[in-house]
């Protein structure tokens, strides 16, 4: 074919020619049997390629979909771990926040921080000592009594 319409014919055949070029090719086709034959050959070959093919087997499609589900699961597992890590971090921060602020407010009232605990220890020790002295002095009432009275004085001082 020496009509120089080869590439224009291709564009026309595959719908890529603009309206002007399409009109030009159609006008040319009316008087060019060789180009008409080429169009017919392209159409016949295209029809042959379009003939129904069985397509991939069900097994192939199944394998691909199984891999897709596994990949999605693996990706969601990865995201969940990130979410879990973020959640853990947020909870830890919240707990630290609560602990820090509640600690500041409560510190003045806490027994170990107010001196009350040491005072209670003194009272307890004095009572224990008094009981001990009383028990040991059961054989000598006079001495024991006077000693107890002395201790009572000391006891009142210590409180």
């Amino acid at each position, binding site marked *: 074919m020496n009509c120089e319409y080869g590439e224009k014919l291709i564009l026309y055949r595959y719908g890529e020619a603009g309206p002007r070029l399409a009109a030009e090719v159609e006008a040319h086709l009316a008087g060019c049997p060789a180009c008409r034959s080429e169009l017919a050959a392209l159409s016949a070959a295209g029809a*042959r390629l379009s003939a129904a093919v069985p397509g991939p087997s069900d097994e192939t499609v199944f394998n691909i979909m199984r891999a897709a589900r596994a990949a999605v699961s693996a990706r969601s597992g990865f995201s969940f771990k990130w979410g879990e890590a973020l959640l853990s971090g947020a909870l830890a921060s919240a707990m630290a926040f609560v602990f820090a602020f509640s600690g500041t407010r409560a510190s003045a009232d806490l027994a170990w921080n107010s001196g009350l605990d040491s005072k209670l220890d003194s009272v307890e020790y004095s009572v224990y000592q008094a009981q001990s002295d009383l028990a040991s002095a059961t054989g000598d009432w006079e001495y024991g009594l006077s000693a107890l009275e002395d201790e009572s004085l000391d006891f009142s001082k210590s409180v």
Partner: protein
Amino acid sequence: MPEELNDAELVAAYKAGDAGALGTLMERHKAAVYGYLLRLTGRTDAAEDLFQEVFLKLVKNPGAYNEREKFKAWLFTVARNAAMDLFRRESSRGEVSLYGDGDKPGPADFAASAEPGPAEAFYGKALGERIDAALASLSEDQREVFYLRHYSELSFKEIAEMLKVPIGTVLARMSRAAAQLRKKLEGEAQ
């Protein structure tokens, strides 16, 4: 609904964790990709393997597809590369050439369809065989462009970008393919 999404949106949905989106995508393109691979290789086992390889690439690494490019162009590029790799592997092992050797046809020349197409149904089975023979007579470059244009339905400009050649080269190959097909079919008819 996944069916209403375009290709890029389906890939995005799959990336976001919707495995069904990949199924929709595969359903949408499987006939064209499989048909292309079957024509290229001429063997159902090879076409099946390559088809699986192509979609598994997307399954394992959906990020390999850049959403700014046309999905079909990406898909057929992957399919073509996979087929070329197979061809190179088989060629290095001294196995049969994809496109034949000289006048001898290769596997790509014997991709018979399971059912007759419209032209074949009209002209009879003999025409189908004649067309296969005419396709087998095309050069590798001509056949590559012809199959890509037919199955992918990409524009000649997109095919030129895929093959990294000027669009004029693609059109020239198609034009020579058309002339060769005509010559063969007319010659066979006489």
